[in-house]
């Protein structure tokens, strides 16, 4: 029943005011969705009294004193996070990339179901393994060491590496590898010289996803560490209890804590979707 002139306009672009209305809705969504993060960053530059002032102040004289005091308690947990996340991500790649290569390169009728099995391990709720892991780490005296978290993050993220890298490697042109094989390249050279350089972007985005997931993980982190090796996600929760009254300082600390995953995420958001969706959507 639509009017003939409207539909006969080829590729009918929406009228300008619809376009601007849609933009306005989007910009409003940015304010609602990104606003809380923006405000958190802003609060970190306020004095303590300014942070509590109502109505909220957008314009104020910024100060770095909150960052100065937040940094004192920041470096410890930051380097803990860096070490734990870095080591576990490295191990995940060392295990997952060759596995994905094996599954995409060698033909076997079971390959698809093995890849699927890897991803189903993600459906296992952390709660279902929390107590035995705690008991095991306790008897091995690994509580409040980086190793407990490195072990569990490796178990958590290796399936993601296998899953995503399998999607990237499956799409590689066969011809290159077959030509290399004819040239007598061995398996290690094939992986190191051909497959890994070709899937560099995929490996980077997969690694970044591991970094984000393990940097932000909280249940295992709070269960298996105490004071010595507490990572940033736990430190944020601890600061909230101990410095809840110093909101500006807490904001500065929190801003520092989210810096790494946010920057990493911004850099890789496009690759991320590709790795997650290809193959999962038929």
């Amino acid at each position, binding site marked *: 029943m*639509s009017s003939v002139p409207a*539909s006969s306009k*080829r590729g009918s672009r929406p009228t300008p005011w619809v*376009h601007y209305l849609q933009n306005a809705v*989007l910009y409003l*969504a*940015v304010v609602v*969705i*990104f606003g809380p*993060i923006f405000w*958190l960053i802003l*609060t970190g530059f306020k004095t303590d009294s300014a*942070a*509590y002032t109502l*109505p*909220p102040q957008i314009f104020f004289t910024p100060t770095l004193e909150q960052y100065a005091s937040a940094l004192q308690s920041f470096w410890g947990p930051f380097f803990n996070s860096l070490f734990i996340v870095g080591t576990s991500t490295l191990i995940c790649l060392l*295990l*997952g990339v*060759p596995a994905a290569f*094996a*599954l995409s390169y*060698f*033909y076997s009728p079971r390959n698809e179901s093995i890849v699927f099995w*890897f991803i189903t391990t993600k459906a*296992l*709720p*952390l*709660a*279902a393994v*929390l*107590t*035995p892991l*705690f*008991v*095991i780490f*306790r008897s091995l005296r690994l509580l409040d060491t980086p190793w407990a978290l490195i*072990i569990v993050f490796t*178990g958590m993220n290796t*399936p993601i590496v296998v899953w995503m890298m399998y999607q990237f490697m499956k799409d590689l042109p066969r011809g290159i590898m077959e030509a290399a*094989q004819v040239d007598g390249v061995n*398996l290690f050279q094939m992986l190191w010289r051909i497959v890994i350089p070709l899937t560099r972007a995929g490996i980077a985005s997969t690694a970044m996803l591991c970094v*984000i997931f393990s940097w932000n993980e*909280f249940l295992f982190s709070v*269960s298996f560490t105490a004071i010595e090796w507490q990572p940033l996600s*736990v430190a*944020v*929760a601890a600061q*909230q209890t101990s410095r809840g009254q110093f*909101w500006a300082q*807490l904001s500065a600390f929190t801003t520092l*804590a989210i810096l790494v*995953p*946010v920057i990493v*995420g*911004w850099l890789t958001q496009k690759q991320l*979707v590709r790795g*997650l*969706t290809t193959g*999962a*959507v038929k």
Partner: protein
Amino acid sequence: MAVSENMSGTKRAASGTGAGTRKAPASPEAQRRSLLYPALIVVILITQIPFLLTIYLSLQSWNIIRPDLGRTFVGLSNYGREIFTAEFGTIMLQTIALAAMALVICCLVGLGLALLLNRKFFAKGLVQTLLVTPFFIMPTVTGLIWKNELFSPNFGLVTWFVGLFGIEGFNPMAQIPLIMVATMVAWQWEPLFMLVLLAGLSAIAEEEKEAAQLDGCNRFDVFRYVELPHLLPYYRMVILLGSIFILQVFGEIYVGTAGGPGTSSMNLQYLTFQTGLVGWQVGAASAIGVVTLVLTLVILTGLLRTMNAVVKEEA
């Protein structure tokens, strides 16, 4: 060179054997195993074996900080005492309600934003980047933002804002804690839904939509008959992936509401932590963990079946 996929697969395996015998003694199958098994074994060791231990521990009575009480085999009594209680039932329903609310918000908001983003407009890249950001934020930070910055009864931004309209005693974190946790979770996971649905939308050929418009479809018809059927597989994927994580919310609750008031914003993950690592009841916590797994698998299987049926019907 029109070789079918299966054929080329066999050929590949065959040529692999040839190369293997010439260059290295290992057969392709042995090579495949040597690359695959380390990852396989590590994942089994870290994720599957502990679960078997959970089942074993769930049959014990064991308070870890009271070694004097010892560790005794109690059969299924942990399940009887912990699971068939009104409190557990409520928390189980809360887990489901929390995930359902968050998923519905994610599906709707994600779709809306994806449709709006799938156009050309000023500062598109920046808008998309800012909208994705919550996905990279720590759950504990989300809890902190909600509890302090937005909804603090004293200085929260939203509290102040609704106060302008004369609303007093606004304290949703205490009044409707479960819904507030759902909004936190939705805020964190909406970007994933938006990105995946946007990937789906941008995969639709422009000609297909134009053809539909030439046939007299309005914007809604184009959505209903062209875009939505195409999006269903993307929805299936993102709902499954999202549910896995959304069923296990923890950090937002821990910092945002601490499960309270009472147990009114707890989910099973939080209850397991509370029982095992605050109450030190290892046996009881393990029993709750086992039930959590069963419930998760039932929900995920149900979702998968439903969505497969929907996708098939529309295809």
